[in-house]
């Protein structure tokens, strides 16, 4: 049973190595990409079921008992996130088959993709703070390379900012881990939670919490440290943008959720108020940024920021409903944003550009793509009955229950502006007549179908999780309860037998 | 006795290292600085290592000390040589008191890129 907590890391890791060794055969790598991500999804589903039935699962890697070795822990939050990784991985892997250029494939695209997934899953599953740093770095370096792979000028510019700011965040993270170890003498998160529990308003711990907040804030793209995201997300190939949008910032949010529910709960009125403020400002700046853009993927990038604000808002409100909203929003946003990026790629293939000015006429020429975009975009904008609405609704409800009127108002208003910029894309790229510039050679039917299969799959998912939101919300609520009452987590990690 | 021998060796070695570093600061041009560092530095470290060998008086330490000495004796001159050669080719300025240069004469103009009156190129990159 507990082996399930390792499998989601091992599968992509092994696939990465295998693709690396098979670097001369692209065909093999492609097959491996789809098979590996499918297996990952399968394993994630297994993990999820197991966690839902048996409670928190963990593996003491190397058989070393909990605070000493590295524990891999899967609670509901983790398994939800792992499931997302599997989903996004599979969708993007299939999409890549048709969209990735051969030069990049030859240069190690697939191993990098697998490694990215391994890093992300590692980060989701680890129960050790330093190990979290390591997986962060795995994920980061994989993303660095994916971002820069190809070496076009825009990619380089984006990559420099992305790399520098993320390294800065890593350095902060590392410093925080070091100081925390110096104080508490342990790295296991459950152990830290126990050891820091009774310290009360300890200035230093709060201060370290702020180091973590900033470090994870950078990775999650929170205000005011999100600048790397809009600078870089639109530069790499679409499939890469998509997987980034789906997973990378989520790891930051996940870490915030984990750390600020498990470890730094000594001074909730102080820390979580700051988080709430950051969330509100993130929403506003992000959405305004998007409003100013005129390029498909840049709009999407900025929206990623504002949506991150929603996820973090749940953490700031710190109630079961709010945290459930965060979890739900994480899932929703991954699915939707990945999909929007994928669609932007299809639009580019059909219309020849990412610039809204140069796009047009897709509503008439490609109604299926238009329909898919509309559904997904409206989900992002929080239109009912799609998933985005449910997430926003739960958060708004939680906010009102907590009496946080301002943030709810901001969240709703931001939803409105999001809707406006989604309709901007819709109006410009789809409704508007074709601008008459020379269109590219349309992709072959086979290519188009391969591109649209993951898009349609994810779109169906966003509709389903909207209309049939109940099961997912149930899971999210259970996850939230586990977060708020971390005794289960701690017992699972520390209470198991010694070697 | 052994203690004292070790102490003397180490002090001597570190003194040599100090001399080397003073030489590196004081000497007027790159080549003479190198003369100071490549010899005094190497011997200095070797003496310190020898002092350690004497102090511990055990086979593993002695062999390690020997290894250090051998490494230094092997690498230091090569390092000095390649730096000096590159520096020369780069036309690092020599001390004004330099008496002769039998190499420059034998390098063809094409090899050196000799231009009348061209000063040493700026190496401060």
């Amino acid at each position, binding site marked *: 049973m507990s082996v399930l907590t390792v499998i989601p890391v091992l599968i992509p890791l092994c696939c990465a190595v295998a693709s690396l060794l098979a670097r001369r055969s692209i065909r093999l790598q492609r097959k491996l990409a789809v098979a590996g991500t499918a297996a990952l999804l399968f394993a994630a589903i297994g993990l999820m079921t197991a966690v839902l039935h048996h409670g928190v699962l963990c593996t003491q890697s190397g058989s070393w008992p909990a605070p000493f070795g590295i524990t891999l822990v899967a609670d509901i939050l983790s398994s939800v996130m792992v499931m997302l990784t599997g989903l996004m991985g599979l969708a993007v892997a299939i999409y890549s088959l048709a969209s990735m250029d051969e030069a990049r494939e030859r240069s190690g695209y697939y191993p990098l993709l697998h490694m990215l997934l391994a890093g992300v899953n590692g980060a989701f599953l680890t129960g050790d703070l330093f190990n979290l740093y390591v997986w962060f770095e795995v994920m980061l370096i994989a993303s660095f390379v994916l971002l820069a792979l190809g070496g076009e000028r825009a990619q380089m510019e984006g990559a420099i900012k992305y790399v520098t700011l993320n390294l800065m965040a890593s350095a902060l993270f590392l410093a925080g881990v070091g100081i925390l170890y110096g104080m508490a003498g*342990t790295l296991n998160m459950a152990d830290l939670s126990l050891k820091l529990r009774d310290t009360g308003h300890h200035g230093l711990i709060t201060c370290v919490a702020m180091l973590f907040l900033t470090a994870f804030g950078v990775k999650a793209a929170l205000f005011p440290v999100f600048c790397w995201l809009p600078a870089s997300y639109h530069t790499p190939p679409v499939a890469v943008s998509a997987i980034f949008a789906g997973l990378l910032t989520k790891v930051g949010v996940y870490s915030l959720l984990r750390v600020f529910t498990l470890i730094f709960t000594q001074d909730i009125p102080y820390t979580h108020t700051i988080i709430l403020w950051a969330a509100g400002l993130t929403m506003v700046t992000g959405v305004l940024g998007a409003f100013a853009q005129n390029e498909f993927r840049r709009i999407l990038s900025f929206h990623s920021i504002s949506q991150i604000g929603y996820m973090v808002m749940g953490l700031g409100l710190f109630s079961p409903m709010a945290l459930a909203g965060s979890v739900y929003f994480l899932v929703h946003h991954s699915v939707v944003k990945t999909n929007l990026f994928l669609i932007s790629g299809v639009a580019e293939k059909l219309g020849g550009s990412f610039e809204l000015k140069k796009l047009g006429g897709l509503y008439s020429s490609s109604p299926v793509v238009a329909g898919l975009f509309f559904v997904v975009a409206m989900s992002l904008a929080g239109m009912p009955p799609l998933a985005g609405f449910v997430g926003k609704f739960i958060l708004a409800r939680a906010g009102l229950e907590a009496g946080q009127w301002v943030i709810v108002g901001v969240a709703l208003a931001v939803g409105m502006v999001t809707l406006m910029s989604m309709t901007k894309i819709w109006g410009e790229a789809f409704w508007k007549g074709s601008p008459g510039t020379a269109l590219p050679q349309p992709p072959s039917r086979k290519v188009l179908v391969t591109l649209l299969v993951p898009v349609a799959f994810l779109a169906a998912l966003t509709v389903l999780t909207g209309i049939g939101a109940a099961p997912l919300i149930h899971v999210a609520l259970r996850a939230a309860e586990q977060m708020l009452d971390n005794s289960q987590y701690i017992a699972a990690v520390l209470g198991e037998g010694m070697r | 006795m052994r203690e004292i021998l070790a102490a003397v060796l180490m002090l001597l070695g570190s003194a040599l290292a100090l001399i080397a570093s003073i030489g590196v600061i004081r000497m007027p041009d790159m080549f003479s600085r190198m003369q100071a560092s490549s010899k005094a530095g190497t011997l200095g470290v070797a003496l310190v290592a020898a002092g350690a060998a004497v102090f511990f008086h055990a086979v593993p330490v002695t062999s390690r000390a020997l290894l250090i000495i051998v490494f230094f004796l092997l690498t230091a001159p090569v390092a000095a040589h390649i730096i000096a050669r590159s520096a020369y080719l780069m036309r690092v300025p020599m001390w004004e008191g330099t008496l002769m240069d039998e190499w420059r004469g034998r390098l063809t103009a094409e090899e050196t890129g000799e231009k009348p009156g061209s000063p040493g190129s700026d190496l401060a*990159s």
Partner: protein
Amino acid sequence: MTALPLAVLSPFALSALAPWAHARLKHHAGWLLAVLPAILTAFFGSLMPLAASGAPASFRTPWVASAGVMFSFHADGLALLFAVLISGIGTFILIYAGGYLKGHPQQGRMFVFLLLFMGSMLGVVLSDNLITLFVFWELTSLTSYLLIGFNHEQERSRRAALQALVVTGTGGLAMLAGFLLLGTAAGSMELSEIVEKGDQIRSAALYLPVLILVLMGAFTKSAQFPFHHWLPNAMEAPTPVSAYLHSATMVKAGVFLLARLTPALGGTPEWEASLTVFGAATMLAGGALALVKTDLKQLLAYSTVASLGFMVMLLGIGSPYAVKGCLVFLTAHALYKGALFMVAGAVDHETGTRDASALSGLRTGMPFTAFAAVLAGLAMAGLGPWLSFIGKELALEAVLGGGNLWLTAVTVLTSASFVTVAGVTGLRIFSGPPSAAPKKAHEAPLSMWIGPVWLAIKGALLGLMAGKAAAFLAPAVSSVLGRPEQMKLALWHGVNAALGLSALSIALGAAAYIGWDRVRSAGRLGDTILKWGPDRLYDLSLDALSALARGQTRVVQSGYLRYYLLAVILTVMTLAGHALYSRGEPPVMVSTVPVTAYGAAVALMIVASAIAAVLLDTRLGAIAALGGAGGGVALVYVMYGAPDLAMTQFLVETLTIILFVLIIFKLPRFARLSRPWSRVRDGLISIAAGGMMAYLALVALHVDLHPPISSYFAENSVPAGFGRNVVNVILVDFRALDTLGEISVLGLAGLGAYALLKLRLSGRKAV
């Protein structure tokens, strides 16, 4: 009763088949698709007795139960009244759309959207749960966005569609917040329960916010002043859309909501004041502006705005007369306005113009259309023995009963305006000599005149058979008033004040009709005012938002990496510093490990190297200084018992230098790029940041909350790990997972560097 949700969802299901039907049957598909709403009309009609008996059909199943969301429907009188109107008019709209958009390449999509809209609208009126209602509410906004923008290649259509969406969407979001608060105040999300708890809600502290937020939603949807502007603009939509959404159904959703919530929220001074004031203002604005328009659809749109204001005002008054008047008028309005819009569409379709001032004498070319128009026009003017006449009488009665002179005056003026508009749209263009229209007028096809004719006749019949109408409307009135209410309708109430006022308004209207041209030229002023009206305001606010967005982005997302870095640094400093300051920082204690002279010298060297790295203006010099710092750090590791670290540090330092040296050749030289003041600023910030980290290091060193876990490693390394180098045992055994990740990082870095050097897609330098 599961038939209820099935009925609501059936249009959605059918919409999935519509493209297929259209592909097979082309424009005839409208006839086929119209079967469903016809059946639905009958179905909803059949539920009416249940509602009248006080045991309305309902259905409830959990949706998102944990968040209090039920998928529940409740078919009381009010809901059924609307449902019948929606499906009934929808039947003819589908048929009409088949003819109107004949041959249009995207006609299939029109069917899809219309059906989707119909389903959403049915959902709005039948929902019992607030959130379910909201879901359908927003769906109507969305579908109407798609419908208004149907002529999507035109900029104006897109603008109108967006405007409608933005205005109604904003209101919708406010309403969502209002609903959530309402649910909190009432302790239930089910409307059927909420309406029972009126007193509890009205006395709750949240009452005012709930009221304001809900009104925001209702007013925007129902185009109340000052949010009315989207409705006339929405006339960019094809006529079936205007007829359906913007006269008969969607715009009435707001009225519906107010009626629905009257038992819960109504009756307070706040309610009354806001509804009557906004309603009256809307009536005036709509009525006045309708007079100065010549475009048939614009004319009708503004009069619709005025009608909506009328209904809102009546709900504000809230007396039984007013409610009855409101609902009767609403029904009548839906019938005649739908008919008139379809007429206008048919005229446009056949003649190629909608300019009322340019059209005349169409009766000969389009007899059936003219018939419908005249009937509907009479209804609109409140002249004939039609249902609308009864409604107007009731309304006047109610206004008089309220005793408010202003409202009375407004009502009369608005009614007069209706008369004029009715004259123009129902009479003027059909009478007189035939005009020189762009196209020779022919009668529209059956699909396009059957609707208006039927609706117009229906309006007339309901008036003539007032008893039947009363029976039909009574349950709805009871729903709104929150108690069973007897209802008798009669055409003739005898001569009273209301009749007098009615006559006055007709006279005024007729006068305006006769002098229509003069009225219009006088109304030019109104046009100029309109330029600065809410429509303009909408544009301005969008521009302002845009400017704000651009400005903010320029500042925040400047593109300069160093500002981003500064943001990160300043953020962490502010947060951490404030945490220490406000949470009470622990004091710094003195060192416990004695300072050695050589240790100090090594420390000095690291400091000197770091400073040198900053100050040196040659790249390799700076790199050499970096090497010095790294070496110094390695010596610190040596001094404090970490040989493995020292080795690694040295090796890594050296290899880094090698890499630098290999690559530096290709990098440009240092240049002093930044200005002095920015150097000073950065210097100060970095010193502050460094100081903070130093302070943190010191504090952390002396705060030992718990002893470290390392003793475990010290004890188990040999017996369980079989290694005497504890660090290495940790690396390859205790914490091997870290190491696995770490070599993955390393491997990726190597591959990445390789790929980056070898793959150059920009073609600058082919390899």
